[in-house]
């Protein structure tokens, strides 16, 4: 056992954690914006909106993220108008932005389905009660439908976020030196893949476990009214397992 090697590898990979988190965060943030748009389009009732979102979800869920990433990074630059565009070219020639765009487009497809399911799962009685109170459509959405739907979407959303953490590793195939890329480089330099990849694996696993814990905690905090009465709660695990 060579502890110095493990420690120095751990440290080098950890130094790349901020970059991984950067890709992760922006991918999720832009993905959330696109997913909200898609969900709105789907729920708007326009037939064309529904067809568009269906096609979008079909395409982005049906093909591997790697293909989407290559298509955006290598494929789009073939268009002359992309290369000459002052807005598109700075984004599409940078592998970092390309990864973020690919991840955002991909996760938006999954998330819009999650949100659609959550909106449909809001009990009709709650919406009827809100109507009976004379709430306007906007108030109804803001204080009844949305909070309930968000809570219902949380478990599936946390799974999607964990899938995104795993997807950041793909950035390494387009030359980004995030955690996976760094691990790859150390592995090529030292030819000790098992040790190096185990170190990287431990970090990824801890990252994902903490994300899962965090979401479990948020879920717990958001559903006090669904928990059993205090005297019976001893027999029940307070934090549900997510991962």
């Amino acid at each position: 056992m060579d502890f110095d090697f493990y420690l120095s590898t751990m440290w080098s990979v950890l130094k790349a954690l901020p970059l991984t988190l950067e890709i992760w965060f922006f991918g999720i943030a832009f993905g959330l914006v696109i997913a909200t748009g898609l969900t709105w389009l789907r729920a708007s009732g326009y037939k064309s909106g529904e067809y568009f979102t269906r096609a979008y979800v079909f395409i982005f869920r049906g093909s591997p993220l790697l293909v989407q990433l290559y298509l955006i990074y290598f494929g789009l630059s073939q268009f002359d108008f992309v290369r000459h565009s002052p807005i598109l070219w700075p984004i599409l020639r940078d592998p970092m932005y390309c990864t973020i765009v690919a991840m955002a487009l991909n996760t938006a497809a999954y998330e819009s389905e999650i949100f659609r399911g959550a909106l449909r799962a809001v009990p009709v009685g709650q919406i009827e009660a809100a109507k009976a109170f004379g709430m306007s459509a906007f108030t109804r959405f803001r204080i009844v439908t949305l909070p309930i739907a968000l809570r219902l979407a949380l478990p599936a959303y946390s799974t999607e976020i964990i899938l995104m953490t795993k997807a950041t590793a793909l950035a390494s195939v387009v030359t980004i030196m995030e955690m996976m890329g760094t691990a790859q480089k150390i592995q090529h330099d030292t030819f000790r893949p098992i040790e190096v990849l185990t170190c990287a694996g431990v970090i990824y696993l801890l990252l994902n476990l903490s994300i899962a814990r965090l979401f479990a905690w948020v879920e717990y905090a958001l559903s006090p009214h669904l928990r059993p009465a205090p005297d019976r709660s001893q027999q029940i695990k307070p934090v549900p397992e997510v991962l």
Partner: protein
Amino acid sequence: MEFLNSLLEQMSTAYDLLAAGWGVQLLWGIGWTLAVTSVSMVIGAVLGSLVAAAKLSHRARLRFLGESYTTVFRGEPELLIIYLFYYGGTQVLTGVARSTGSIGPTDIVNMPSFLGGVLAVGIISGAYQAEVFRGSFLAIHRGELEAARAYGMSAWLRFRLVIMPQVLRLAVPGLGNVWQLTIKDSALISVTGVAELMLTANKAARSTHHSLLFYTVAGILYLVMTSISTPIFDRAERYTSRSFTRPK
């Protein structure tokens, strides 16, 4: 008009390239992708049922092992697992060969890329299949297990006549999802050099400089594969649950 002309031109180049042999190559790529996916699914089914059994076991240690398996292999990036099996396999094989003296001290024994890739994807697929099998087992009515026990059936007989047929029936929709996931994961083993669809598209894109064309074609072919499997699994689901449909 200019746009239309350029589009037509693009399409004729596309046709020329595909007819010049890349089309056949891509078809072979599909074959390899399906082979990788099927073999991985089989490995995953074996591992998945063992892990599901471990997770449902009465022994705390086995349960812990099963839990760790599913947590680790669903929580790690797929790429990392694939690298681990491919490069790690090379490390182990080389170490063994060097210590037995069958190769020189500077030679390397490479992990066969198909084997490494299939093992990695199969183990990941096994983690997801374990969850599917566990869910299906828990959905079996308790009374049926108790009835089987009351009849004096042995554990094996109970498994063969009561548990297995029902788990298989209930698992079909979940296995369909895992199959789709495994098809998409199989694209990642292009990094180890298995000539499946993704790597073929890569080679074509690099050597012809028509990356847009070949990645689009690859994307469409993946879509075709995933969308064809949906009705097949739907049909399998209808077939396996044919005695459970409600009369209209």
